[in-house]
């Protein structure tokens, strides 16, 4: 196990290096400079040179690349151009908490509601609740989260006045964005667990479990759910990354100061240091989550971990 994790961590660094290199050179191909283009083209050449020199942008790209790598090894992600005077580390960490809070709440809400609905739907196959779940699942996958967000804001926030319309401050402000964000995930979880459960409930060992006198709840939780959870764990990884790294639409509708819009903004404004910082952050996070999911498999299904030992 330890050797396996070490190997994965080594892969992580190699992958990151490839991503950093590719992004760095692609990013430098973006037209324009990180400075306000209208002002910059209006500046006398002497001042343009001064600015470029100040940020080391007058040097060849390969030199800039090596300098960046050197700084990175020393833990320095550089200074943001867009947020003048702030380090990229401050910019990213200053905005990550709201996204993580909303994302985490959305994942938990999605898991709880999605799994519950999916399990009940499979158990009561072809019943009212089954049809309800399926309709909800189709809606959840096909309706984009910004539509849900706008509707929630209008009805829950404005018409009924139950929760704040927008902005960030108290915990109440995080509820509507979390619900809006969880909608798609809920639908996915419900669909996956239902399909898998329907298959598992047909298996012989379920009949055995019933025959040995276990009650309905024990059969479902101990045997059916555990054996159907693998596909959910598989999609859990990407969903967690997706939700925790922020959503451009939901965050902008509810004015959440999260990380969702930062990537788009930094690319638009040629904020090189922030683009790199975020790329590294996203990639590392994604690779880590995939690694954790792989490890989780073996926790849930020991057959994946202990090869050759078939009996449980």
């Amino acid at each position: 196990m330890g050797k396996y994790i070490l190997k994965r961590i080594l892969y992580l660094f190699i992958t990151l290096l490839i991503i950093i290199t590719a992004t760095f050179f692609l990013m430098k191909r973006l037209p324009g400079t990180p400075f306000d283009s209208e002002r910059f083209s209006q500046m006398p050449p002497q001042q343009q040179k001064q600015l470029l020199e100040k940020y080391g942008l007058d040097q060849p790209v390969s030199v800039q690349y090596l300098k960046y790598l050197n700084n990175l090894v020393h833990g320095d992600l550089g200074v943001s151009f867009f947020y003048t005077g702030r380090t990229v580390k401050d910019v990213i960490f200053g905005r990550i908490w709201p996204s993580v809070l909303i994302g985490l709440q959305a994942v938990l809400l999605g898991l709880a509601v999605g799994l519950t609905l999916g399990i009940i739907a499979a158990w009561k196959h072809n019943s009212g609740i089954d049809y309800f779940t399926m309709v909800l699942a189709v809606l959840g996958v096909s309706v984009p989260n910004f539509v849900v967000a706008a509707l929630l804001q209008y009805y829950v926030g404005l018409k009924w006045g139950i929760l704040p319309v927008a902005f960030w401050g108290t915990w109440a402000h995080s509820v509507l964005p979390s619900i809006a964000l969880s909608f798609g995930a809920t639908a996915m979880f419900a669909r996956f667990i239902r399909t898998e459960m329907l298959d598992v409930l047909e298996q012989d060992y379920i009949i055995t479990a019933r025959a040995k006198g276990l009650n309905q709840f024990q059969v479902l939780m101990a045997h059916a759910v555990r054996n159907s959870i693998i596909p959910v764990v598989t999609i859990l990884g990407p969903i967690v990354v997706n939700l925790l790294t922020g959503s451009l639409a939901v965050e902008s509708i509810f004015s959440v100061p999260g990380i969702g819009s930062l990537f788009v903004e930094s690319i638009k404004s040629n904020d090189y240091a922030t683009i790199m910082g975020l790329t590294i952050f996203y990639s590392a996070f994604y690779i880590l989550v995939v690694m954790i999911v792989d490890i989780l498999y073996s926790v849930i299904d020991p057959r994946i971990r202990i090869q050759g030992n078939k009996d449980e």
Partner: protein
Amino acid sequence: MKKLSLFILIISIVLIGLTGCSGSKESTTTAPATVSTESVSEPTVEATAETEKETVATEENVPTEPVTSGVPETASGTITVYDTNEIRTLVQWAASDTQSFTVLNNVFEGLYRLGIDHQPEPALATGYTVSDDKLTYTFTLRDGIQWSNGTPITAKDFVFAWLKQMGPDATNGYSFIMNDYIVNGTEYNEGKVKAEEVGVKAIDDKTLEVDLKTPTPYFIRLTTLSMYFPLNEEFVTSQGDQYGVKAENMIYSGPYVITSYDPVVGTTLEKNEKYWDAANVAVKNVNIKIIKDQSAALNAYKAGELSKVLLSSTDVAVYKNDPEFHSQSEFRTTYLQFNTTAKGLDNVNIRKALGYSIDRSILADTILADGSAAAEGLVSFGVAGDGTSTFRELNGNLSPFDPEKAKEYWAKGVEELGEAPQLTLLIADDSVTKTVATFVQSQFKDNLGIDVAIDSKTSKARNELMDNNNYQFAITAWGADYDDAMTYLDLWTNGTPYRGNYSNETYNKLIADAKKETDEAKRLTMMLDAEKILLDTDAVISPLYYRGFAYLQKSNIENLVTHPFGNPIEFKYARIK
């Protein structure tokens, strides 16, 4: 097995916990104001118009003693406004965006400040004298002015801040707004002269002397801009690179102080009790939030969380008759820039034909319908002229719609060229510009019978194509930095590809002479002539519209002034009924 069921159980409990806590709804931010409704005497405006003309403005001209009648001793109430973009920085030598300017303008102050009618009024200075050659300005500072931490504000604070802006530390790209005017500014920036040789000096704590390169009748208006605000050297230096990063890392000289600042969340301001004119600041708290989504802002406004909301073109139709509806146009001109060396557009008749074929009133009133106004020339409505008439009124409509003339010029141009040119319009890919471009394209089709292609690029890519002389004509815009036609007109003297490779000796001479002219009437005539050459004779550009904005504002708020240029929103004069 046990673990998983436990996990689900925990999630269920957490969820019940979450839904159990009913949302603790915050009380709405716009608290009922207790400001008395008695009429508030504003600082008299006529006096300032005179200070501009007269060489000497003394304390008697302006009511510097706080007018306390009608204004309560203690301010109250809250105004909440929003920006659609992050407040990038509060360091004045790094700030270049409207959001930052808005905050800076309300927590700092310069020698002069724009009044309710957008004219400069004495602020930290009580007045100035100017030498006969109009090159040396001597400002006298107000007595008893101090920073929010109690340190006195002196002439040295101005010298420090101005040198910072003129020197190599400034990253906002606005150094030209001093270096173009102040003696040895450019040389200082290039490291050729020492700070003592620059034309800004503190004669004593109360007297600031400024030497200009050329007579600049609008210099007083420049001193209202954020780059001209004072900074306390001792404090700024002690903060190092942490200056301006947090609210507590700054000291303030304006009507408000910052109590919290986060670039993405916004800022909260509170009345500055140390401000010299504090008695005339009636609103105690101001919040500036960040909302990027238009409909979210409208919802927040309706929920009472905002005092003012901007409307998009589609919303204008719905709220047009609402008593809370207002609109205003800015000093910002959107125009077609022709590349005078590009194939086809090197012909002046073709350029004129394109200009005459656009019905700008349909564009402004029907297509945009957001408070924008149809352009009648490069210089926007409202920009200062001779004091009684504006520049635009004096020069008339230089961009009329005339389909007959358009066809005539087109035919003439095609004859000279030998064939009809194939044209491509380069634009930035934001939604407003796309709408404008599509309209312009349809006008060319209707009135000239030609098909013009549209090439839309990100604004950075568009600028790069223009800088590299790789375009025929493009939609671009310029907003005034200060209230004078020169802010627009001197752009076309450098002959760069971005400005259409335009170079005309007569035009350049007019602009150069106007910059040296001490007689204001002559100077104005030169600028009026220059605009005519640019638009009518040479048709280098064709103005389309002056950007405007339509908004709803709570009816209990008065005098929440938005200036059409420079530092937009002014909270100092605001009153809550």
